[in-house]
């Protein structure tokens, strides 16, 4: 998965851009560098795992504005900000808006930056995997009938078939049928599996 990941650099300064590109390439990353946020957006592939290394202060679309725009996506890419001057308020704003990290230029300890980029890519890959899982799970759930959903909720609460039947006003036998269908559709074989499945969905 990591091999397909891409590091995007957006910095208006060509020297800085070149330097960062060399650095990330020397660490084995695939790098795409852009001078403006607009150019980045034209080439950005939301489908692939990545990490953005953004200059906070850029002409045109600023780093913060780009972050805001990307945050509206279903899977916002992780962003590491670089800034030339100790702009604390902007840094705080960036972090609050979900930035992964924040480095001051020049980055004295480049290993730290590389580590954070790796970490960001790892998290992005995970998030994408989770998203795929969630998407699969959503599709499974959509196959359930409303009655099967009701039964699933109650089974997860630990209610006996008999109680579920009384609550839903159906016979115990019918509950058993719904339950069997629901378990089959979701591909689980035990109540424990079912609960785990549902919980992991909730966590997503």
């Amino acid at each position: 998965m990591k091999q397909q990941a891409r590091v995007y650099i957006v910095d208006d300064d060509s020297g800085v851009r070149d330097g960062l590109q060399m650095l990330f390439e020397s660490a084995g990353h695939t790098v795409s560098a852009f001078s403006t946020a607009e150019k980045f957006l034209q080439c950005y592939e939301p489908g692939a795992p990545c990490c953005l290394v953004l200059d906070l202060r850029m002409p045109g679309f600023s780093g913060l504005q780009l972050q805001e725009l990307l945050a509206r996506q279903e899977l916002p890419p992780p962003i590491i900000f670089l800034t030339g001057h100790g702009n604390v308020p902007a840094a705080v704003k960036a972090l609050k808006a979900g930035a992964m990290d924040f480095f001051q230029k020049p980055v004295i300890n480049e290993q730290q930056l590389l580590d954070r980029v790796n970490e960001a890519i790892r998290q992005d890959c995970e998030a994408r995997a989770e998203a795929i899982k969630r998407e699969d799970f959503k599709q499974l759930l959509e196959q359930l009938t409303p009655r099967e959903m009701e039964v699933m909720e109650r089974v997860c609460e630990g209610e006996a078939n008999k109680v579920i039947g009384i609550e839903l006003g159906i016979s115990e036998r019918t509950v058993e049928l719904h339950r069997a269908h629901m378990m089959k559709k979701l591909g689980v074989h035990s109540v424990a599996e079912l609960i785990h499945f549902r919980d992991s969905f909730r966590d997503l």
Partner: protein
Amino acid sequence: MLDHLPALIAFLKVDQCYVYGNRLHFSWFGIDPASLAGRHIRDVIGEDAYQVLKPGYEKALSGQDSIFMGEVPFANGGKRFIHGTAVPLFSDSNVVEGILLLTTDLTEQKLIEKALDATTLRSQTVLDTAVDGIVTIDDKGIIQSCNTSLQKQFGYSANELIGQSVNILMPSPHRENHDRYLQRYLNTGEKRIIGIGREVTGKRKDGSEFPMELSVGEFMENGRYFFTGFARDITDRKRAEHEARTRLNELAHVTRQSAMGDLASGIAHEINQPLTAIVTMAQAMLRSLRSDKLDSAMVESTLEKIARQGVRSSTIINQMREFISKGNIEESAPHNIDVIISNVLQLLEHEIDSNKIRVNARLHSGRIIINVNRIQIEQVVMNLVQNAIDAMADVPRERILTINTSEPQQDIPYVEVSIEDNGSGLPDEHERIFEPFFSTKINGMGQGLSICRSIIESHGGTLSAFPNYANGTVFSFTLPTEPAENRK
């Protein structure tokens, strides 16, 4: 004959009763002189007057002459200031037979004298309480009189001054030349200070000097010229002026410093960029070297890039150093205004970009050379551009900064520069923006435009502001294109 003398004359017997009184008795006491004989003098002159004069009469009766001078409260005629003489009249046997009284009325004279005294006293008081020092000299420069203030100002007493030449109050070279100045005036009548007044330096007794404002008046007495000098010590005023000037200079410096502060953060960013590039490229090279992935082509191209970034930082630092070096150190020199404007725009490039401002620079001045202090003019342009940027900060429409320089024309001896924005526009108090301490900015000190205007005016140009066609403001200044020595 005695009747016509302007004095009161009376002969008294030893019992102080009248033998004779002259006609003046009628006008003094309303008594017919013919009816005086045998009357006691007390009845004629009144009890009060008699009590005053009685000792004199008695002295005369004892055989001695007596003189009285003073005020006497006479009956009927009121108070008179008199000079009275009482002389004993002796018989052949040397016995006092009577007295002769001769009385002159000095009342009027006395009043005149009194009035004179009062006037003199008042004048003297006025002179002495005057804040200004006042000195009167004759046509040889010899001090005739001086008031208290003058004595205090110069530290001399009146005794030390009167009779001396007034030049002891002056420092060299006036001290030596003053006699000549006086002589020249007396010969030519050419007034250099009389009736004009000017600032001169005074010299105190202790040798110290002080600035004073001197005005001189002249008058003639008995065919001779006299001169009166009014000297006002302006040490305090001078000090205040000096302080104000120093303060303004400091403020100009502070303003520059704060502009520098803003600029410095911009420049810090500018320098930090190439440094970041250098550091990052070196880090990348080291990593490749350590992992044995470094080839010579990469080394070459990277080192070239690093060197270029190094040169770039040093260029920025030099530009900054040039800008920081105080404006007044550099003398006027031939410059081209378009170049100056381009330099400023370059310095402010980051600011302009980050504020998303589109710059229309229509620089048409060609190769016209103006004689200016470059740093100062740069400061003006920078200030005006900075103002324009600030004015457009809250503008939702496209922000446009237009800078024009005029094309050279045959009979126009100046170049005109206009800096236009489409920002928030001028405040209502339009002209006040050039006043020191007037500001529409929250943190403004109100120095920028007032300093800009004085810089432009010191170059012989003008700076004005007016509303832009649709929105915003136009600042426009002119600078003479002729060399400074051809101006005036």
